[in-house]
């Protein structure tokens, strides 16, 4: 248990440092880390503090958000196919973000961007949970997710196509696939308060989710209020996914892959899976973001492309498995 935590933390620290020293500009690792700590007033410090550091921090925050949200939803629905990207929560958040950018609200009101993404995410989570029911079967959950994703994607595309800005239409790819390229400390400040709030809400679900594995009646007998659990889950997920999507677009599959890999290590306890998935999600997104910089540095390969290449085959495998189990 603590061994898993130690391994994950060590891996996270290692990848975080790697993310800081790797980049298109050819700078030695020692030199770049020194420039990060000591401000020499030169271009190097600028690159480290305003480009690489925010990018690495965002990868950790957003990866942790998506991993944790996936683990929480899977725990609540007791269904391994629940992932904020797949069931349309990220897509709805992206639509909220796009609306606030295109109407100009995001530029005038502080925190309007993450808050409108949060609103979009809330609508998405709420719709999915009401459509899928309290104990959503895989089929209704996935169908509801497909419908919400398609609708959100269509509305996002429509808004961007209607924009008078000549660049807006090409941004559809960013909102569907996600990227951390050229983010700045401004984006870290926009995202972290909501991610922290959502993270606390989701972490508070641990006991409830563990109790829920014994069944709803047993959980209620143990003093868990299911209504409150559900409300906390909805707001927590919407907060972390909304803030993440607002600054990095919709990145799918992290919430699906990470809990799936880590579940055996925590003895299938959804409460412990929450923090493990937070660490795991941060690791996965850091790896993906390092990969897009190393593999195709000049093309701004989207993060969602990589996560989908890993996640989609796993998704197919999970569908096959749930079918065999007769769900």
């Amino acid at each position, binding site marked *: 248990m603590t061994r898993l935590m130690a391994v994950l933390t060590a891996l996270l620290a290692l990848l975080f440092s790697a993310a800081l020293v790797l*980049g*298109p*500009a050819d*700078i030695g690792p020692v030199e770049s880390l020194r420039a990060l700590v000591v401000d020499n007033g030169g*271009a*190097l410090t*600028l*690159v480290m503090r*305003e*480009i*690489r550091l925010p990018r690495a921090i965002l990868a950790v925050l957003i990866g942790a958000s998506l991993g944790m949200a996936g683990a929480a939803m899977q725990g609540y629905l007791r269904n391994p196919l629940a992932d904020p990207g797949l069931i349309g929560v990220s897509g709805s958040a992206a639509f909220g973000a796009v609306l606030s*950018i*295109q109407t*100009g609200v*995001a*530029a005038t009101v502080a925190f309007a961007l993450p808050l409108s993404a949060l609103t979009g995410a809330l609508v998405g989570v709420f719709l999915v949970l009401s459509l899928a029911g309290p104990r959503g079967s895989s089929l209704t959950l996935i169908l509801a997710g497909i419908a919400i994703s398609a609708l959100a994607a269509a509305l996002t595309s429509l808004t961007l196509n209607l*924009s*008078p*800005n*000549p*660049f*807006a239409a*090409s*941004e559809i790819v*960013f909102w569907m696939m996600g990227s951390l*390229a*050229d983010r*700045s*400390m*401004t984006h870290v400040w926009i995202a972290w308060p909501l991610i922290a709030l959502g993270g606390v809400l989701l972490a508070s679900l641990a006991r409830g989710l563990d109790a829920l594995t014994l069944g709803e009646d047993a959980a209620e007998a143990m003093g868990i209020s299911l209504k409150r659990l559900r409300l906390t889950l909805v707001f927590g997920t919407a907060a972390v996914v909304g803030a993440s999507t607002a600054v990095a677009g919709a990145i799918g599959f992290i919430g699906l892959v990470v809990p799936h890999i880590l579940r055996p290590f925590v003895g299938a306890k959804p409460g412990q899976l929450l923090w493990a998935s937070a660490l795991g999600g941060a690791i996965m997104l850091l790896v993906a973001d390092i990969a897009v910089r190393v593999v195709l*540095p*000049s*093309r*701004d390969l989207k993060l969602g492309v990589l996560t989908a290449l890993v996640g989609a085959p796993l998704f197919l495998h999970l569908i096959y498995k749930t079918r065999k189990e007769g769900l």
Partner: protein
Amino acid sequence: MRVFVLNFKSIVIAGLVATGPVMGLAEAPKRVVSVNLCTDQLAMLVAGPAQLYSVSELAFDPRGSAMAEQAKTYVPNGGFAEEIYLMQPDLVIAGSFSTPATTAMLRRLGVPVVVFDYASSLADIRDRLLQMGDVLGQPERAQMIVADFDAQLAAFQAEATTNPRAALYQANGYTSGDSTLAGQILIAAGFENIATEAGFPYGGFLPLEVLAMSQPDAIITSNPDAARSRAEEILSHPVVEALRETTGAGWFSDRDWVCGTPFVLNAIAATAKLRRQLEGDGS
């Protein structure tokens, strides 16, 4: 800033002489429709009175078109084969970026279509002007404009001395190298282009870190559109802001930079002014 002004006195006289045969046409076309922002402007410059009937809608937008005022005397078109056919033109002028489906359909319907290549150098501008003169049966007018363009351009080329290093930076972090029109404008204004050092002879996405590490003497960015987009957010990234503060900051206006027309002289003039300011600082 000096502004490119056409010497119209001599051109009007030349325009009275219509010569043919041109591009397989028996005589100079009388009802011409242009469907591309750049050919719109070339056609407006070179066409004789009442010869040009319609230009594309983009030509009316002062952000991208240097001749938005002049365009108002023409009928706008959206570049769709159907509406163009109904205008009953005897010649359609398109750019190489116009949709092939549209030009192919117009040809099938029996409308002559001339496609102009994209200008990627200052010499190309002369060629396109002369080509437009041939196509419209106005070679003398075209030659007049070219002579004026050559004279003004020569003045800039005589002046460049120290060649400070500049970066062209546009939405999404796109930069233009020496083999593009924007790159040629930069060279004509007496700058060296950091895109070339970074290995972009044409154009490409210059990572923000590479931009910061190359430490240019000047940074020339596009002006963000009033309607916001994520693509242009990069132009207000703290790193770009820092570069603007510590180096010369220039602005890239689409209307003078995008199309191969004599209006690039305005872009060269503005950029050369930036260079003189840098030299004035003693840097």
